[in-house]
């Protein structure tokens, strides 16, 4: 697992622009949003939820393209003829991008609670925690979905297909209680809902109980990685 994680980091070291984009884009978007709302009340409500969206989005894209490249370049087939277990391969990717996600989450959270003046009722450190789990969730989702993409075009299209519905239903645009019952039920089985729920609790409650939300997110991560492992076939037609 560490072998694969170290290799992915080495690849990223040769690609500083991608790393910069991963770190800078979420921060730039949050700053833009602050400017749009002039730092007013709406920003205070929306920003924590976006802190849950951006890591998921970025990590989903990066991971699905990276693993698709691994499939199409033949390196995946080569690796599967070697003594590398499938969980170790997927775990390596999750570890590598998860590590990146920690840095991204810390930067975005520090920007929010520092210069952008987000005031959280609960301890802001918990925002970092949620953002990290959320980013790993994006990685796991990307790993799983990339199995169904045959080209880069398809992989990129999976982003609006898989992530945007979660965004629409996560409760940010319309509170989930006000949604039609069917959509409210659907939102309950989408992982982003739990991430947004956790960040809004941290923003509004002095001692937020986010254990349940985090547990559901970790459950999604484990489940998606397990499903991802099933899509890696050593034997193909």
């Amino acid at each position: 697992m560490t072998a694969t994680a170290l290799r992915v980091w080495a690849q990223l070291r040769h690609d500083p622009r991608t790393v910069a984009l991963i770190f800078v884009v979420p921060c730039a978007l949050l700053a833009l949003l602050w400017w749009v709302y002039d730092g007013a009340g709406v920003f205070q409500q929306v920003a924590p939820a976006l802190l849950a969206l951006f890591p998921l989005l970025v990590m989903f894209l990066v991971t699905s393209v990276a693993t698709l490249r691994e499939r199409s370049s033949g390196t995946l087939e080569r690796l599967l003829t070697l003594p590398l277990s499938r969980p170790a391969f997927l775990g390596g990717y999750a570890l590598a991008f998860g590590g990146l996600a920690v840095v991204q989450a810390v930067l975005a959270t520090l920007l929010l609670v520092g210069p952008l003046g987000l005031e959280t009722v609960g301890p802001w450190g918990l925002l970092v925690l949620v953002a990290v789990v959320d980013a790993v969730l994006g990685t796991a989702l990307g790993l799983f979905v990339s199995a169904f993409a045959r080209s880069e075009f398809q992989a990129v299209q999976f982003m609006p297909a898989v992530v945007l519905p979660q965004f629409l239903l996560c409760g940010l645009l319309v509170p989930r209680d006000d949604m039609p019952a069917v959509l409210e039920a659907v939102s309950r089985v989408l992982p982003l809902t739990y991430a947004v729920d956790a960040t809004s609790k941290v923003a509004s409650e002095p001692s937020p109980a986010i254990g349940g939300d985090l547990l559901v997110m970790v459950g999604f991560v484990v489940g998606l990685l397990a499903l991802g492992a099933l899509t890696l076939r050593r034997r193909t037609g």
Partner: protein
Amino acid sequence: MTDAVVVEGLVVRRGGREVLHGLDLTVAAGRVTGLLGPSGSGKTTLLRAILGVQIVASGRVTVLGVAAGSPGLRRRVGYVTQAPSVYDDLTVEENLRYFARVLRAGARRAASDGAGVDDVVGRVGLGDHRDDLVRHLSGGQRSRVSLATALLGRPELLVLDEPTVGLDPVLRASLWDLFAELARDGVGLLVSSHVMDEADRCDELVLLRDGDVVAQDSTAGLLGSTGTTTAEAAFLALVQGGGGPEGRPGAARRAAPRHGGERR
């Protein structure tokens, strides 16, 4: 002489079409076996079946005494795919270190048993390019990086899919010298090629056409039995002479060149 690979009655279907029609062949340990055939004859499919990554319809493939694709073989068989399967965005050395780590992970034997990164870089003649990104290398250099990854850990069987394509003649000669040297150390090598003139460098030849083994024999034996001087001429004699893809080792010896017209 022991057999590194035994293929019996191998049938493979891809996309609803049968591409290998009940092949029989053997690959000896300590020998270089050339798998020759035109593009589309089923060479890569056969090699994938030997690696155990190809779904097969029927037949048996035994590699180093166990069924192809057994987990224990992943450390004992080296595979070079036709398109170099290495990471473009890593240096030569980073690529090799990764594959070496993957091989070492969970190894029961000490790491020092296997050929290390320094060793294989030298063997494929890439010592001057260790720190170059693979993306910046020529096609021939890339395929040698891929070959180097397969040499890591001293595999007992090497399966090489067209490893010499696009190389200049000097490099090609040096790679064939390397293959012969590995064979002398007891490694079994199965090397595919669509370039018939590479047959001279093989100890054994398997001629493949349209998913059938046209002939398997020692290089000298094959030329002798067909009364030809080159593998290309032998191939033509066998195909046009109706020698027939009987698909059994030694078929060539029975394949007296009759000029009875095209078989298919």
